[in-house]
């Protein structure tokens, strides 16, 4: 079981800074979290974003190449497989 960082924008940076030290970090960007500067993404972490939140913001083509879009069903699977580190 790794750690799933659920990240929104308001103070998501606090979570990303912890994830930087976390060898098993999985990051899921939700809501305005999809606007976070990719320079802040933890180096080794797997980065996901909620597809709906990306699409409705018109960010499909602007998304950083490290980010993979997932739906809520996939997010639930990640929640079940990991410990949720809440920053949203």
């Amino acid at each position: 079981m790794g750690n799933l960082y659920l990240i929104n924008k308001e103070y998501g940076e606090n979570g990303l800074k912890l994830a930087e030290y976390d060898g098993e970090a999985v990051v899921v960007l939700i809501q305005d979290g999809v606007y976070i500067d990719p320079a802040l993404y933890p180096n080794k972490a797997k980065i996901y974003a909620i597809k709906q939140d990306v699409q409705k913001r018109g960010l499909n083509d602007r998304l950083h190449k490290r980010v993979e879009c997932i739906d809520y069903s996939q997010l639930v699977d990640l929640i079940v497989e990991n410990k949720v580190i809440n920053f949203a």
Partner: protein
Amino acid sequence: MAKLGFMLTLGPFQFENWETACNIAKAALEKGHEVKMFLYLDGVYNPIKLQTFPDLPVMPKDRVAELVAKGAKITACGICVNARGLEKGKDFIPGVVVGGLPDFAEIVSEVDKLITL
């Protein structure tokens, strides 16, 4: 199957958290997981019976009702309810119970995962 606990601290109409919470909870219920949700602070505004707002296609209370219908247990913080002048839960859709933080403590002891939004 897992038990998912939620704490929702934001109300409807101004922030997206209620929607994210409902979307995750719905997907979890549809996969056969259990959902227990605690409404804290403005979170208690989400299941108000008499919501109307022309700009939203689906009212937040109807999203919460959908979760209740799928088996979610929803508890609202009593202190938060009273602070906002809501009449001891009479203002809520059926299925939403008014409780207190000890109920949340119980949720924490029961669930496998905890999501706070």
